[in-house]
Structures are given as structure tokens and as C-alpha cells.
């Protein structure tokens, strides 16, 4: 996938212009930048949630407009918001996501236990701590068959153990031919071979 000459303008301020980027299978693209540089805005454009003010996106060398369903089906976007319903339990939230993306039911209990939520599977999510809620929303990365992951500050609120776990999972995904775009202010602790960094300058 590829983006060409992207630009985004928010409140009459040019966040970035003529930005081009490419992402291949097995590649991890880390977008860096100060607070307010436009990282989240860029990710939302890449996820198809917003339109670029200029420029085009390509997926498998075709403009995105033509391959939208294929692209969206292959995408997993996790943003600043959690995407979990506070009244539902972790288990129910997972089941919902599974169904929404057309997957078959599987052993969510084991997954949640793996994520350190053993014993909290059937507690409404609003009763979980900040980090536990984050874990539930990240659990989707274990479910999804999507190839492209777009993660906006996934490490927020997680403790060290969970960060390690998530990075390991990302590594596995890359090795399986996946591609990841992420932003984070914390530095990555594991060794990623195919790490590409893109620096967004904070423009005023």
C-alpha cells in the first residue's frame, strides 16, 4: 500500500503536505512527531476514516477508491478511543467484534487469560482499570486476520509486561507477512528489523 502527496489541513492549518509513504508486507512503519504534529490525523486518513485534503491512497497499486472493500476487510484500526462498550463484559465485547468482522467463535477465555485478564472476563468493562480496558481493546489484534494494522499509541496505560507481550505479538505478525503502522511516544523495546520511521514535524 502506498500514499502519495497526502496533505491534511485542520482549522486552516496545514499539518502536512506532499507527504508520501509506502508500506510493504513485513514492514513496521513508526510515525513520530511532537504532540499535535498530525500523527493521529494521518492514521485516520490511512484507515479511510477521513479524506485527505489532497493526494491519493493506493492499495496494491490501485487507487483506494476502487479497492475499498478489499482494503477495509484487511485492516485493523485501533485509535485513541477504546472501541469497547463500558456496560458489556470483556467476553461480550470480544464476541461482538468477532461477529462484526465475520469471524468464527473461538476460545476467548484463553485469550483473555493470556492477556492477564483471568478472572475478569465477565465483569462489565467500566469496572476495569485503565490498563485493563486497554488490554481488552487490544485483544482484537489477536482475533483479527487483517494484514494491515494501524495502531494509534497502543502502549498507553499498559504496564511493562503488557507492552512486552504486545510487541512480541507485533513481531509475530510482521514475520507472518503483516504490516503495521503505529505511533507511540515510548520507544520500542524489542528489535524490529524492518522498522521504518517517519518523522512528522510540528508545523505552525
Amino acid at each position, binding site marked *: 500500500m502506498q500514499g502519495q502527496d497526502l496533505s491534511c489541513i485542520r482549522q486552516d492549518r496545514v499539518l502536512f503536505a506532499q507527504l508520501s509513504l509506502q508500506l510493504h508486507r513485513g514492514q513496521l512503519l513508526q510515525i513520530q512527531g511532537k504532540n499535535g504534529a498530525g500523527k493521529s490525523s494521518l492514521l485516520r486518513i490511512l484507515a479511510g476514516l477521513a479524506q485527505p485534503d489532497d493526494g491519493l491512497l493506493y492499495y496494491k497499486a490501485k487507487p483506494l477508491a476502487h479497492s475499498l472493500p478489499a482494503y477495509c476487510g484487511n485492516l485493523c484500526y485501533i485509535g485513541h478511543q477504546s472501541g469497547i462498550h463500558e*456496560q458489556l463484559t470483556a467476553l461480550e465485547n470480544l464476541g461482538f467484534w468477532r461477529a462484526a468482522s465475520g469471524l468464527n467463535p473461538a476460545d476467548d477465555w484463553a485469550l483473555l487469560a493470556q492477556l492477564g485478564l483471568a478472572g475478569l472476563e465477565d465483569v*462489565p468493562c*467500566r469496572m476495569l482499570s485503565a490498563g485493563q480496558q486497554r488490554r481488552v481493546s487490544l485483544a482484537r489484534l489477536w482475533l483479527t486476520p487483517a494484514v494491515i494494522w494501524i495502531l494509534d499509541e497502543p502502549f498507553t496505560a499498559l504496564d511493562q509486561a503488557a507492552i512486552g507481550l504486545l510487541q512480541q505479538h507485533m513481531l509475530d505478525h510482521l514475520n507472518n507477512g503483516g504490516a503495521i503502522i503505529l505511533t507511540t511516544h515510548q520507544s520500542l523495546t524489542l528489535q524490529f528489523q524492518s522498522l521504518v520511521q517517519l518523522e512528522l514535524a510540528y508545523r505552525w
Partner: protein
Amino acid sequence: MFKWLDPYAKSETLYHFCGKLLPYLMVSALALLLLGNIWGLAFTPADYQQGDSYRIIHIHVPSAIMSMGAYAAMASAAFVALVWQIKVAHWAVLAIAPIGAIYTAIALITGMAWGKPMWGAWWVWDARLTSELILLFLYLGVIALNGAFSDRQVGAKVSSLLALIGVINLPIIHFSVEWWNTLHQGATITKFAKPSIDPSMLWPLLISILAFAVLLMALTCLRLRTAILVNEQHRPWVRKLVGG
């Protein structure tokens, strides 16, 4: 006064105290109820105006009066709970609310069943009837509000506050007959000086009222015990009591 109450604020003591009281209360409530109702149904003369339909009085008036009594009790518990921050009192509020709601429903149903033959309509929009309906809504509001919070403690406190605020409805119900001209009967037995009712009818009625009051206490004890267990389930004494 609260020196005296204090030992009962300890939930374990209160649990056992309620447990001891419960059988006596329950048995005497049921006995009184049966006595009062059978006496009233079969062994008193018919009213010269209303015929035998007046026998509904033996449950209508007790349940109506005690529906208000239950609210008063609930509100006092709420007051104690909020002012002195006594947890058990919060639970008492929640224990009483469903009982009061049922009593109110009984008062409404029996009132309607009495109103059809007497006034010719199941329901009229008379002040007392309406305010009794509002009382039902207040009870339901307390119950619903408590259910609306996923944090049990917060729910209990907020519904106590609501119960306390709703007290202003009690005088409205009681004096509604005097403030608005209505179909409903004025005070007959609550006029202490000279009850304007025949003693042969009065006695079974008084017994029934007493029965409803004792039943209220019994049920409160029972439900309070459950509430204590639910809220104190992590305490060692509960664990030992339930046994695992």
C-alpha cells in the same frame, strides 16, 4: 440515642438480631392478618350504605396506611444513613422500598376494586388516588435509581437521597382529602378523639392494620439480612457463616 443504636449498626450483630426476631414477627404477622381478615369478612355486620363491599376496608385501609408508614420508615432510614453515614441504614432503605411498593400496589388495586361498585368507575382522577399513584412512582423511582448504577455503594447512597427528598409527598397524600374536594372518604379512624366508625367494625380493622405493620417489620428484617450478606460478602464472618 445513637449510643443506643450503635451496636446495631455493626452489621454482624444486626444480622443475628434480625434473624432472632424474624420468626416471631413473621408468625405473629400472619396470625394477625388471618384473624383480622376472617373476623372482618365473616363475623361483622354489613354496612348499611355500602353493603358487603365495605369489607374491602380490611385490606384497603391497612395497606394504604402502611404504604405511607413504610415510606416514613424508609425516609427515616435514609436520613440516618446520610447524616451519620451508616451503611446498614442505606441497605435498610433498599430493603423497605419493594415492600412499600407492593403495599402501595395493594392499596391501589383494592381501592380500584372498591371504587367500581361505589363510584361507578375503576379509576377517577381524584387527589388522593393520584397522590397514592405518585407514591408508587416514588417507590419505583427509588428502586430504579438504585438499579441504574453499576457501583452498588453509589446506587445505595443516591437512592437514599431520593427517598429523603420524596418525603414531601407524604403530607400531600394525607391532606389531599382536605385540600381538594374529592370523592374519597375523609379521615374516619385516624381522628383520634372520636372514631366515626362502629366498634364492631373497628376492631378487626385495627388488627389488620397491626398485621400489616408487623409484616412490614418482618419483611424488612428478612430483606435486610440478605442485603447485609450481599454487601458484606467478603467479610470473614459472612464467609464463616455461609461456610465453604
